[in-house]
C-alpha cells in the first residue's frame, strides 16, 4: 500500500522513497552454552519507515527488554539483523562494504547515547572527537575551517569552543557532555540522528532543555530523529510519530498526539498512567513483571501476563496488526472487530 519507486542504478534495483525503511527485521539471540540454550527474539518482525519529504521525529517508546536498543543498534549498523533488511536512502545497510560507502553512511546517520560519560573515552579530551569527526568524515581539510565548523555546532547547543577545548569528560556535567555529544553528531549535517535514551541519565529538571534542542535542530537543519525512550512525557513534546514496543513487537503506532491523548493498547495506557506527574496521584496499584525470559517465550500476546483487559484468546494466539480508521496501528485482540478498516502487516507514515 505504500508508493514505491524502483530505480535501476548500476544494475542494482534500488527502492528510493524513504529516508529509512525497516523491512520485517528480526533479531534472535542465543543465550546459554552449547549444551542448553534459549532463543530470545529481541526484535520480532518490525516494520517502520521514515519518509524523505520532510524531517520527522519518530519516538520508539518501550521499557528495558522491549528490544528498542537492539533495534537502534541495527539501524546504526552496529548489529546485523537475523532476518529482514534495513534500507537507508534506498540502499541496504548491510550491503555496504567499501570504505567510501561507509563514510557516506556515517555522514548520513549519527548516534546519541544514553550515558554521556560513557559516550566519550575518559582518557581523551572531548574536543579531540570533534576534530576527528571533521577530518575523518571529510568535512574539511583546513584547520581554520574545522575550528569554525566546530564552533558553529557547539553554538547550536549553547556551548563554545574555548569552554570545551582540551577538557576531559570528567570535567563536564552530564548535561554539558550530552550537548557536546549532540554537537559532535551534528558536524557532518546528518539526515538522521538515532538518540537512545538521551535524557534518562540527566536530572529531571534539565531534560526539557535537550528535548527542546532536538525540536529546534529538526527545524533548522532538517534532521529527522529517532528518539528512543521509556518516558512518554518527553516523547509527547516533540514526536510526530510514536511506536510503542513491548518485548520486541510494536503494539501501537501512529501520530503521537493521537496515540498519547487517546491510547488504545492496554500497555500504552499503562505507560501513560505511570508517568510521575505532579497533578494527580496514583491510586491504582499495578503489577510488575516477573522473570523476563518467560514473557519472551510466550506463544500468545506477550503482554497477556500483565494485561488488565485480557481475554482468553490472548493467551493462545499472537494478536494481528490492525490498521484503524484514525490512521493508527494497534496490535491487540480488543480491536479485532468491525471497527477496523483493514488488517495490514505493513504500515507507513
Amino acid at each position, binding site marked *: 500500500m505504500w508508493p514505491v519507486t524502483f530505480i535501476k542504478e548500476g544494475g542494482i534495483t534500488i527502492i528510493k522513497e524513504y529516508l529509512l525503511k525497516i523491512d520485517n527485521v528480526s533479531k534472535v539471540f542465543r543465550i546459554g552454552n552449547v549444551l542448553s540454550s534459549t532463543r530470545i527474539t529481541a526484535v520480532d518482525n518490525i516494520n517502520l519507515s521514515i519518509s524523505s519529504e520532510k524531517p520527522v521525529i519518530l519516538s520508539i517508546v518501550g521499557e528495558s527488554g522491549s528490544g528498542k536498543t537492539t533495534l537502534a543498534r541495527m539501524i*546504526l549498523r*552496529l548489529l546485523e539483523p537475523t532476518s529482514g533488511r534495513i534500507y537507508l536512502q534506498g540502499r541496504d545497510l548491510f550491503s555496504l562494504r567499501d570504505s567510501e560507502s561507509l*563514510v557516506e553512511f*556515517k555522514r548520513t546517520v*549519527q*548516534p546519541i*547515547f*544514553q*550515558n554521556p560519560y*560513557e*559516550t*566519550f*573515552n*575518559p*582518557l*581523551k579530551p572531548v574536543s579531540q*572527537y570533534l576534530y*576527528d*569527526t571533521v*577530518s*575523518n*568524515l571529510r568535512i574539511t581539510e583546513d584547520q581554520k575551517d574545522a575550528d569554525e565548523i566546530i564552533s558553529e555546532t557547539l553554538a547550536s547547543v549553547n556551548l563554545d569552543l574555548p569552554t570545551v577545548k582540551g577538557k576531559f569528560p570528567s570535567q563536564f556535567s552530564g548535561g554539558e557532555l550530552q550537548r557536546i*555529544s549532540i554537537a*559532535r*553528531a551534528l558536524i557532518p549535517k546528518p539526515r538522521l540522528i538515532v538518540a537512545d535514551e538521551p535524557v534518562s541519565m540527566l536530572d529531571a529538571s534539565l531534560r526539557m532543555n535537550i528535548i527542546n534542542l532536538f525540536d529546534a535542530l529538526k527545524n533548522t537543519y532538517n534532521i529527522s530523529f529517532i528518539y528512543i525512550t521509556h518516558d512518554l512525557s518527553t516523547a509527547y513534546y516533540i514526536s510526530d510519530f510514536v511506536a510503542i514496543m513491548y518485548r520486541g513487537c510494536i503494539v501501537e503506532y501512529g501520530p503521537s498526539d493521537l496515540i498519547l491523548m487517546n491510547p488504545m493498547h492496554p500497555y500504552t495506557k499503562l505507560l501513560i498512567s505511570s508517568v510521575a506527574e505532579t497533578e494527580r496521584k496514583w491510586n491504582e496499584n499495578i503489577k510488575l513483571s516477573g522473570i523476563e525470559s518467560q514473557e519472551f517465550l510466550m506463544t500468545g500476546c506477550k503482554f497477556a501476563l500483565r494485561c488488565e483487559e485480557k481475554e482468553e484468546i490472548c493467551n493462545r494466539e499472537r494478536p494481528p496488526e490492525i490498521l484503524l480508521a484514525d490512521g493508527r496501528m494497534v496490535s491487540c485482540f480488543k480491536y479485532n472487530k468491525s471497527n477496523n478498516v483493514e488488517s495490514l502487516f505493513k504500515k507507513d507514515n
Partner: protein
Amino acid sequence: MKKKIDQFLYVLYHNNLKLSLGFTLLLFFIVIGFIIPSFAPSDPVKWNSVPRDLPPSREYILGTTSLGQSVLWFLSKAIGNSLLIGSIVASFGTIVGVSIGLLAGFYGSLLDKILVLFIDTFIAVPSLPILILFASFFKGKASILVLSGILSIFNWSWPARQVRSMVLSIRERNFIDTAYFSGEKTGWIIFGEILPHIFPWAAANFTNTVLVAIGMETGLAVVGLSNLEQATLGTMLFWSLNYQAMLRGLWWWITPCVIAIILLFISLFLISTGLSEYLSSRRSL
C-alpha cells in the same frame, strides 16, 4: 611537562607507601646494577683478578670469591644483568602479549579462536622441562640476549589472555561506537581508544614479569643451566654453592647475593601491587 612530572611524583610519593618504597628501592638497584659497574677496576667476571677467599676488609669491601673475583663488583654486575634479563623478557612478553590480546579480543570470530588456541597451548604446556631442554641445547653458552629470548617464550601468554578478556568488555562500551561514528579506522580504535585502558594493567604486569623472569633465570642458573660465564644473581648463587661457600665459612660470598635477591624481589613486588592498588582506586573515582 613539568606539571606531568610533578603529578607523577605526587602520585608516587603522596598516598601510596608501597609505590614510593618499592620505587625508591628499585632506583637504588638500578644505580647499583648499571652505574656502579662502570667504576670497576677490571672485568668483574674474570677469574683470579684478585686474591681468593678474602673476607670483607677496607680494600675489598665485600670480600672476594673462591674464583678470585671481587664480590662487590661481581654483585653489582650481576644485579645489572639480572635486571637486564628481566626487562627484556618483560618487554617482549608485554608487547607481544598485549598485541595478541588486543587483536583476539577486538576481532573475535575466527581470528580470536585461532589465537586463543595458540595462547592456551602456551599456558598449558609446562615451562620448566622445555626451558631445561632449551638451556641444555645451548650448552651453557647462550648470551644474555638468547637467554632472555628463551625465557620470553613463556611470559607472553598470560598477558595475552588477560588483555583479551579486558578488551572483550571494553569493546562493548559506547565510546567505541562514538569513535566508529567519528570515522576512526579500526587500527586507531584498537591502539588509540582501547590500549590506553589496558596500559595501566600492562605496567603492573610488566613489573611483575621482571620479577618472574629474574626468578626463572635464577632458578635455572642455580641448577647450572644458565650461562655460567656471565654474572647474574643466579650464576652467583650457583658458583657460591658449587664452591661450598657456606660450609667453608665464606658467608660474604653468598649472603649479599641472597639479600640482594630478596630486596630486589620485594621492591618489584611493592611496585607491582602499589600500582594495582593505585589504579583500582582511580577507577572507582
